[in-house]
């Protein structure tokens, strides 16, 4: 099987409301990604696009609408989609375009413009629930997160003050991220005092809705070695979807993340994830979700994620930094682009090019993970320098 590396990356600023059209956002990120590795559009053989619900940008068959902005003019172009997990599924989809031997280079683009939805993007989440048995109750996405957070807390006895530390950590990390929308120095008290959205979730527990795009360039080994002297290899991929009947699953533990991470670890030949993974970007749309996913990723024993957080293991200076980028909570959450922003963070950290976000000690093996749908999909990518 051919080895595939990430050779270039680009990202736009993340804003609550951006003026650019979705095409222009995709173009800005793609242009930066191509310039970052001095490749022209003619060097790219195929394009893969990840973007989440069409209900945000308000364009049906959004993949086709975005094809020219993603550099796919008269090229093989395909969109993939697993809700929130799309961002980390993008490099996986691009990976097997190249690993299969069909193509040597692949441009991976992820874009999301949530501000087109009026009056509020949250309204689009009404229709992710079963249209017959759940929608008549007018649920919203925040309910399902709060339901899961409650189950997670009551199972392990976690306290809200401890979980709030995730927001403090990520928003502080985001101060150093150029695209950050909500980098801030906050305290646990700020989080607990922020207005209640759906107990146990407060306002500062949630990542914002954002407009933004990100892009990376993948290349097969022989091309990657010519393009850059620091290619970052995609050594493990894994993704899984659980059943859509989310009320029949015990939400305290993400089985789907465990299955996805096992697939990725097996492929990358990793036996002891908590030791062999040096840096991780678990998906953190909500504060508790980062801890929930750290347990699913086998980076700590079940029920041990809060202790890990309290011991500072997941700080940038800890020995397993989690979300050094600032995560969705700090940088912003344009759904699909968030996942790719996390993959890019690991790409930059492993190359030592993360500026003042750079974690100490040269990490050589990193992992990015995204979550999505009805507490249902886990997508994991393991990368090595």
């Amino acid at each position, binding site marked *: 099987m051919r080895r595939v590396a990430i050779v270039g*990356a*680009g*990202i*736009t*600023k*993340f*804003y609550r*409301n*951006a*003026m*650019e059209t979705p095409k222009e*956002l995709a173009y*800005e*990120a793609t242009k*930066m990604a191509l310039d*970052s590795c001095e490749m022209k559009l003619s060097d790219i053989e195929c394009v893969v696009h990840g973007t989440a619900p069409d209900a945000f940008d*308000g364009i049906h068959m959004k993949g086709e609408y975005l094809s020219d902005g993603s550099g796919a003019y008269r090229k093989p172009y395909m969109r993939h989609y697993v809700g929130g997990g799309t961002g980390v599924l993008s490099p996986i989809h691009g990976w097997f375009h190249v690993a299969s031997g069909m193509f040597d280079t692949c441009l991976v683009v992820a874009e999301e413009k949530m501000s087109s939805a*009026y*009056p*509020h993007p*949250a*309204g689009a989440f*009404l229709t992710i*629930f079963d*249209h*017959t*048995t*759940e929608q*008549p*109750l*007018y*649920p*919203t996405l*925040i*309910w399902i997160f*709060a*339901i899961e957070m*409650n*189950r997670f807390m*009551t199972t392990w006895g976690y306290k809200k003050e401890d979980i709030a530390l995730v927001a403090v950590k990520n928003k502080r990390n985001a101060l150093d991220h*150029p*695209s950050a929308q909500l980098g801030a120095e906050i305290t646990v008290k700020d989080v607990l005092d922020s*207005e*209640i*959205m*759906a*107990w146990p979730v407060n306002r500062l527990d949630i990542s914002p809705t954002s*407009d*933004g795009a990100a892009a990376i360039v993948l290349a097969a080994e022989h091309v990657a070695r010519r393009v850059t002297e620091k290619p970052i290899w995609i050594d493990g991929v894994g993704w899984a979807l659980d*059943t859509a*009947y989310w*009320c*029949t699953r*015990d*939400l305290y533990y993400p089985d789907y993340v465990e299955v996805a991470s096992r697939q990725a670890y097996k492929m990358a030949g990793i036996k002891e994830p908590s030791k062999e993974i040096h840096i991780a970007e678990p998906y953190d749309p909500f504060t508790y979700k980062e801890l929930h996913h750290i347990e699913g990723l086998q980076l700590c024993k079940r029920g041990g994620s809060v202790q890990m957080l309290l011991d500072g293991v997941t700080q940038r200076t800890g020995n397993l930094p989690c979300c050094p980028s600032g995560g969705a909570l700090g940088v912003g959450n344009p759904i699909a682009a968030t996942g790719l922003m996390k993959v*890019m963070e690991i790409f*930059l950290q492993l190359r030592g*090019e*993360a*500026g003042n976000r750079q974690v100490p000690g040269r990490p050589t093996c990193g992992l990015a993970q995204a979550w999505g749908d009805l507490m249902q999909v886990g997508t994991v990518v393991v990368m090595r320098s």
Partner: protein
Amino acid sequence: MEITEKMVAKTATKLSAEEIQKGEILSVKWTPKLRYAWDNGPAIGRYLAELKNGKIIAKKCDKCHRIMIPPRMFCELCWVPTGEWIYVKDTGIVNTWVVSYVDWKAGRLDIKGGVRPFTPAVIEIDGASKGMGILHHLNEVDPWKIYRGMKVKAVWKSPEERAGAITDIKYFKPL
């Protein structure tokens, strides 16, 4: 190459919602009419019909012996057609719950003005398999007194009001 503030600065232009509303930034409005009539199929069809009769029905998988609600024509774990229809009780226990101050359009409820917050919950229905729950609302209970494992009972609409929908159960209240 490190991604710097300068490189990212010109990639997007920040707007405020007011600028768009006031027309300082040009925009186009559109409200699509996206209407559907989804076929229920035998399982959900029977489920809704039984709700109209004030009953909750589940279906059993003969291989893994799970009694599943809402009923389905095949067991998604064993991937075999499900068999027996089984009526289950309209009581259950709270698996997990929420006290929500926002509605589905992220609009804030006037809690201070005395509006009761939404208290949706996953309720494990008695008679169905362990952990087999449905989403529904809780009411006639102090939102802050709800606890995991609390026993609840369905409050039905009157037979005339019932239309064969999940909302035929108004909410669940403590037993």
